[in-house]
């Protein structure tokens, strides 16, 4: 229910019953390869276009989720998902295949948490029993739309980020007591922040203030302080954005330890992979949170985490027209289901 200015508290503690995560070859060589359910050797995934490949990623993630939860797809009420491609066609086409009632979301790279917040809200208020939510991105499809052709030999600056090829899907269900599974407890919906940056090769720098703003709003609305969480993880700020956001938070008096504040875009790849400032893309936060982080929570490494997925709401047209990059961030708190609740 609404708490403070822009946050929801989920008193019924919707549960993330199962997740499915798929990825491409570059992720297979990355740091978190073990946390992916499906990894492809081929960037094409056996399809004849990258857009179709992205659809395959999403469909596989959905199927894996359903298989893990041992649930028929007819029992799923809604699908909340989105991606970065024009008119979010890969997601819509996957929804066509799955035949699940569908909300198409666009929040750029923040789509994963936008979807999780909405799904949790719907389940929390008994609008549905089982909801799928997630996001996907494909490196080559995204590069094609936002930047240059894949094979074009342009030099990327060190501030550029690498779009993740992958999809992450979570099944949000009503809480069933006694199950040792992660639950969502609250969410803060961010507002669009524009600090006037217009370099599309430095998205992290543009998104950092949005992340900081949402994190501050979350602590204000929830009346808690950062020590409540074991981990505050941002979506895809990359090296520059993450450092900047850390400094912004420090300046506004939020006491965070460096270890407690991490970034999905810095976790997913190894240092020697040529990703410049880190990973990005809608699939970045989705795969890392639904794969790696929830696994860690189940292992008991983290009890309570706050995921802040950030998105840069630009289009290829808008930055060519010299518009600055408006950014957004959504935060969702995920906790382990405590016994006896």
């Amino acid at each position, binding site marked *: 229910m609404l708490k403070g200015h822009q946050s929801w508290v989920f008193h019924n503690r919707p549960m993330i019953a199962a997740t499915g995560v798929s990825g491409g070859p570059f992720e297979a060589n990355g740091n978190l390869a073990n946390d992916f359910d499906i990894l492809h050797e081929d960037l094409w995934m056996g399809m*004849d*276009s*990258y*857009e179709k490949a992205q659809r395959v990623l999403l469909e596989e993630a959905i199927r894996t989720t359903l298989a893990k939860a041992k649930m028929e797809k007819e029992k799923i009420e809604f699908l909340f998902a989105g991606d970065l491609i024009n008119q979010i066609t890969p997601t819509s086409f996957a929804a066509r295949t799955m035949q699940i009632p569908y909300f198409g979301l666009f929040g750029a790279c923040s789509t994963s948490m936008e979807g999780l917040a909405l799904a949790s809200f719907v389940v929390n208020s008994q609008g549905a029993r089982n909801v799928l939510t997630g996001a996907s991105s494909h490196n080559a499809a995204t590069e*094609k739309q936002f930047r*240059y*052709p*894949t*094979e*074009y*030999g*342009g*030099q*990327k*600056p*060190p*501030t550029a980020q690498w779009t993740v090829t992958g999809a992450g899907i979570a099944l949000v269900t009503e809480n069933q007591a006694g199950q040792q599974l992660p639950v969502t407890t609250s969410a803060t919906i961010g507002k669009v922040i*524009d*600090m*006037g*940056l217009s370099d599309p090769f*430095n998205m992290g*720098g543009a998104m*950092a*203030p949005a992340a900081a703003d949402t994190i501050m709003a979350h602590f204000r609305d929830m009346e808690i302080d950062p020590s409540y969480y074991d981990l505050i993880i941002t979506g895809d700020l990359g*090296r*520059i954005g993450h*450092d*900047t956001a850390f*400094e*912004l938070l420090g300046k506004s008096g939020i006491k965070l330890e460096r270890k407690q504040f991490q970034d999905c875009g810095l976790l997913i790849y190894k240092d020697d992979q*040529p990703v410049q*400032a880190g990973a990005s893309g809608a699939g970045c936060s989705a795969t890392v949170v639904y794969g790696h982080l929830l696994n860690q929570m189940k292992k008991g490494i983290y009890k309570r985490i706050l995921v802040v997925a950030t998105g840069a709401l630009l289009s290829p047209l808008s930055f060519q027209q010299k518009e600055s990059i408006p950014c957004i961030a959504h935060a969702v708190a995920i906790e382990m289901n405590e016994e006896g609740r």
Partner: protein
Amino acid sequence: MASKQKNMTPQQQNYQQLQQKHELKRPVLKNCIKAFWVGGLICVVGQAISYFYIYFFDFTEQSVGNPTVATMVFLSMLLTGFGIYDRLGQFAGAGSAVPVTGFGNAVISAAIEHRTEGFVLGVGGNMFKLAGSVILFGVFSAFVVALIKTLLGMWGVL
């Protein structure tokens, strides 16, 4: 840039200063050295090819340009298709973008990229989406220079 700064709120300006601190700078000197070497090596290959044509075919130093350029573009097409040229580009920057191989790469990468949309609307329509402006402004500036030269010739300056 100055006028752009004025339109910003103080808050935005403050943030941009803060962000500047964290922004990773391009290693300009290192990039220049890399570009120098790779660009130079590409030119050595080009020179070798043009010598090859001079030695074994009836091309003079002036007419050897066309077959040499064609061969270099063909080579860059192969490298682009095999996925090597974009890595070379990330390493060398201008060194691989400025020679004619970079132009070939811009054309061919776009053609490969849009193959999925079919031959007419995909390859045909998008092939020159990067290189088109090079052609347009190249032709235009050649026209302007030729115009100036003609006019100067008519007025007897040259």
